[in-house]
């Protein structure tokens, strides 16, 4: 790991700590959005238990998308992104550091908050564990793919909505296997296959997506 990697992660965490409310907004969105579902579909515990994993996962997905425009936006506007790319450091480590910082700021709180909402949806203990584990494996994928979308739509009009249109289809496999793990546990099966697939997705996107993100960043600042 290069020192630039650590520096960028530390810098983004420091910036998030200085603007705490901004960093907490996606989590607030997640909390409010998840709470709306019981109000929309009714309070029957059986139905809530069945849809819990899907609701929590989809809301986590949308919450992760919300903060993506800020990922490179400010750096692009004040020119520091261009300086980073000119520094001679590989774009790969810049892009992966940015994705890691985004995950630490947005993904980790989602993983922590998810079991709480699983409880509100009356999930059993093993299912709660599966939900948390699947989010732990899945949210880094969302941050990585989201970084690619953010880099592609950098500085565009209506970039935020476009980003969501570009990235959500690519996130679908993570969603399928993440919720699949919880339903497998709910129906008494082993969720290991789902964890393996999620892990494989995470490794593949960890290796390939930062590379594509770096290319997209270079296209954007060219």
């Amino acid at each position, binding site marked *: 790991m290069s020192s630039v990697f650590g520096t960028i992660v530390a810098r983004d965490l420091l910036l998030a700590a200085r603007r705490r409310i901004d960093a907490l907004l996606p989590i607030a969105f997640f909390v409010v959005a998840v709470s709306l579902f019981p109000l929309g579909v009714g309070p029957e515990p059986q139905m809530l238990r069945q849809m819990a994993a899907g609701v929590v996962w989809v809301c986590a997905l949308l919450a992760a998308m919300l903060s993506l425009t800020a990922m490179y936006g400010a750096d692009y506007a004040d020119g520091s992104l261009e300086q980073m790319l000119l520094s001679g450091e590989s774009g790969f480590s810049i892009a992966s550091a940015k994705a890691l910082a985004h995950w630490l700021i947005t993904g980790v709180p989602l993983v922590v908050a998810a079991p709480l909402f699983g409880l509100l949806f009356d999930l059993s203990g093993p299912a709660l564990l599966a939900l948390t584990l699947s989010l732990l494996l899945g949210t880094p994928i969302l941050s990585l793919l989201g970084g*690619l979308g953010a880099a*592609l*739509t950098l500085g*565009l*009009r*209506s*970039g935020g909505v*476009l980003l969501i*249109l*570009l990235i*959500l*289809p*690519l996130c*679908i*496999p993570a969603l399928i296997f993440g919720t699949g793990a919880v339903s497998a546990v709910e129906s008494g099966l082993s969720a290991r296959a789902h964890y393996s697939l999620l892990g494989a997705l995470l490794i593949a996107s960890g290796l390939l997506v930062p590379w*594509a993100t770096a*290319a*997209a960043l270079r*296209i*954007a600042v*060219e």
Partner: protein
Amino acid sequence: MTTTNRLRFFTFAAPQRFYRLTGALVPWLWAVTALLTVAGLYVGFFVAPTDATQGDSYRIIFIHVPAAWMSMVLYLVMAFWAAIGWAFNARLAFMVARALAPTGAMFTFLALWTGAFWGKPTWGTWWVWDARLTSELILLFLYLGYIALVNAIDDQRRADLAGALLAVVGAVNVPIIYFSVKWWNTLHQGASISMTAAPTMASTMLTAMLLMTFAFWAYAFAVVFTRTRAIVLEREQHTEWVGSLAAAKR
């Protein structure tokens, strides 16, 4: 110099030569499209026998299956030309990739639409959340995302490159569509045509389907060439040869 007149690998990568070549080809492609469509529809609707279990409603597969094939193939072709454009910095490849997207999206929509029409009498429902249908829907989203991204970026070079990157990344999805039949085996019936086993359909049905597939290919070529020609004219409007073309029209 004799080499200047020889046909080389990249001869038609020059927009001007491409424009002239496709100008000659497009009328023929339209004629082939019309002929094959008429022949395919005739064989499909009048010659092919009625299916034992599905009745006459199965006949929509003569549109549905070729459209679904085209939707996937065109995405791969689009990603291929995008990648070529990126690797060799070929202007024309980007233009072709851009011209392919609307046709691919149209075929994807057609496959979904005819699939719904086929599903209603056969399964009793317009839509099921089956793996193949879902991935076809995702493919439509990918096409729409590409079209939206390319149109949102004003700078032409950045639009080309960013679209190329997105197309290549999205191409990962196309194998998922194809293998989803093996992954999740739900309501959708398995593939009826395979390269290794004997086909399970009557040979006239296969003939009609192949005729329609070739008709769709010819249509795709004709439309994509026409659209590329328009893009070529738009992007090369400051060049001498486009100027002389316009002067000749006057």
